[in-house]
């Protein structure tokens, strides 16, 4: 049964008409045209759909939208802009961490959630945090460098 659900995404309040158990990923993409979060598996096993909810990295494909009500949701579109990217986005560009770009949303959002909590996270902690984010292009090494670089900047 569809109902009116109010969620706050990137600082803006939205009212959408959806079933409460619809995964947040589909609401972001289909109802709000925020396509940054990607569908990779639908099972929370690849990380491509990651968004930040109340400061935590969350697999939006596995979170019913009803559970996101009243929380602060941030997607990659809300991190920074093309003219003023977020430090994590800028670090990914500076370290040349992107290839096909499909895992990037998940990597950036997971890393941002970690660094916002712990900008001085060490290499092991970063690897652990990103272990749930798959990348088939194999740019892991540069992604780790990018996160380390962003962490240094955010620690200042």
């Amino acid at each position: 049964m569809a109902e009116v659900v109010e969620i706050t995404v990137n600082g803006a309040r939205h009212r959408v008409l959806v079933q409460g158990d619809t995964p947040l990923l589909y609401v972001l993409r289909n109802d709000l045209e925020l396509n940054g979060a990607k569908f990779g598996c639908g099972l929370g096993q690849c990380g491509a759909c990651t968004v930040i909810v109340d400061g935590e990295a969350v697999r939006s494909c596995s979170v019913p939208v009803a559970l996101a009500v009243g929380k602060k949701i941030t997607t990659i579109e809300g991190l920074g802009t093309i003219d003023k990217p977020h430090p994590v986005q800028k670090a990914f560009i500076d370290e040349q961490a992107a290839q096909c770009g499909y895992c990037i949303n998940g990597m950036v959002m997971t890393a941002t959630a970690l660094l916002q909590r712990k900008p001085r996270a060490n290499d092991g902690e970063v690897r652990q945090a990103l272990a749930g984010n798959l990348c088939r292009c194999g740019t892991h090494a540069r992604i780790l460098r990018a996160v380390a670089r962003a962490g240094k900047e955010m620690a200042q």
Partner: protein
Amino acid sequence: MREFELGRAVPRTEDIPLLCGRGRYTDDIVLPRQSHLYVLRSPHAAARIRGIDTAAAVAAPGVLLVLTGADAARDRLGTFASRVQRRRPDGSANFVPPYRVLAFDRVHHVGEPVVAIIAESIAAAKDAAELVEIDWEILASVTDTAAATAAGAPIVWDEVPDNICFVYPVGDKAAVDAAFARAKHVVKERFHISRVAVNPLEGRTALGIYDPRDDRYTLYAGLQAPHVMRLELAANIFKLPANQLRLIAPDVGGAFGMKGSAYPELAMVLWAAKKIERPVKWIAERSESFIADHHARDNVSTVELALDDGGKFLALRVATIANLGAYLASMGVHVATNNLGGLAGTYTTPHIHVTVTGVFSNTNPTCPYRGAGRPEASYCIERIIDIAARATGIDAVELRRRNMIPAAAMPYKTGLTFTYDSGAFEKTMDMALALADWPSVAARRRAAAARGKLYGAGVASVVEMAGGPADIPLEEGIEIRFDATGHATVFAGTHSHGQGHETMYRQFAGHILGLPPERVRLVNGDTDLVFHGRGTFGSRSASVGGAAFLCAAQKIIEKGKLIAGHLLEAAALDIEFAEGRFTVTGTDRSVDLVEVAKASFIAQRMPRGMELGLDANAVVTPPGPTFPNGFHVCEVEIDPDTGVATITRYAVVDDVGRVVNPLLLKGQIHGGIAQGAGQALLESVVYDPGSGQLLTGSFMDYGLPRADDLPFFAVASNEVPAETNPLGIKGAGEAGTVGALPAVMSAVHDALAPLGIRHFDMPATPERLWRAIREAKPPSG
């Protein structure tokens, strides 16, 4: 010196939109009234379809259309082609199974498409799918590669009772037999190269549109080769003129060869879109990808190497069974047979004979995947050399050195099919050993042993053919088109899906035409916009795309000289072009290319009678293939208590010819190594032998390499320009995988050797290693 030139480490210019969530992948494209396709697939590995009742599904809420194989037959849809043909032992052409859009009366693998349900939402389509009733008669199935050739094995196709699609012999059998007869040493081993599921992070996608106003179809899909796919769909499936179809590959989240195959879903969305006159979108789910995508590799090879008492390779004999799957993927037969030349490796082995038996099985068809037969060939030769090293007591590196083709011998006709144009294999090896600090391996081995760990170091010397085939290489198309503001658009027949082509073509434009990057835009992936293309696969875009770019650029310069001569009031013969400027020889009178381009649109500024505009199209067949090569050094540590193998160090020196961009190159090498290492240590597609059911159906069962699995790699280049490419480029996309698969397994074997384990098949997962270590060691106490 200009920043955007060949050889410069220019950062990618295409990243900002991708990093800010502004990429446009197929699922990001949302069209008014778009509907959703759900494909009901066979749950059985082999079965007869006795009947399909779709009445309840048709009537279900939100359902717009339900299609079956009977509808496809009624609409006279064709079948997908197998692009390479081989022969059966009796000389007849291989059987090509009818690869239909929807199954007709039988299914041949779990996941085969049977019913297409199009509805207002994917949920409605899935609900309707549950109402479809199919009367199945389950048949016996066979999924294992070797088992498919055994007497009495279940028959996959009635037309082929022995399951053998083709037998392909290459080489001089008599010479090989004679060499084996007189050899001092002969080593033999049987290798199973695992089946893998490619799993790019973006699954397969297709969005089909029919426009009744123009009577034309458009397909958005994750494709590597849109022009090739357009021809396949037009000529083979729908029997339509090619210009009635437009194919667009937008941003694509990884392809690696798998998205080069023709698939039923691409046809389904177009077929359905015409019937309901609404866009039809299909997005693969991940568990669906495992049963519906084409898989890769899956060979059993028996390899024998004959050596003299000095360790010189006298002959190599290989017998391979290649699992083609239930159907022939577009390039499935290519993978099994066209890269065998790589078995010569970087060595002088004078006599080589290979027999490849292609078999059918009740599994997903196998298709090209990063390397497409080259990692398999390199694996066979590199593993048998390691085994020969242990058998003869000659050091594994020294044994390779004794047999390496000297740089002075180029061009070198190998003992099999390839003639290498260039390569300095020994120097590349020495550079890699230095980069890896090879002499210190022993110390690391001792340190690991002190911690109770097994430690292994392995190497691989590899070479592959790129930009082929060898006799007539495939062409590529590039158009360079200027506009009235003096900006250029490069229309490329290649497709960038992670390789950084926008940056690459800007470097070509800077280097050859002297254009700054902001004056160059790349368009690729759209068959309406790009005249002709072959696509991106097989490590060919930089080399063949570069050759075509050079040709188009030369035409631009030629016409530019005529215009410049007119503007400068000099004869065209007296005009030189360099660094983006046309100059009257011996003077300082010049005009730049941008000015010439602007002038070309103004009749008053042009020579009388000359056509306006500055534009050139080139579809180029390069003079020959190229041979990227490299030397890989891998070290692994294995915990005998858990079986976990960790790559501790990895060094590689690659010769990809002239390096276009070291940053892009390193990205490709890293990614290639990750995929080779993934197959060696983690990945394996597993079927249940009895039922043919796929057991590895999700990322919980199928392991992809993760951030905590791989160390930083040391990557360096030994640039030996290609003689068969006008820019000297060899190609780099697959080199990492071709070397990593053998190198990682070589290291694993080195770690296991002290336990007396001579041979261990991939994948070296913790569970398999743990078992092998337990079985090798006598229990203590």
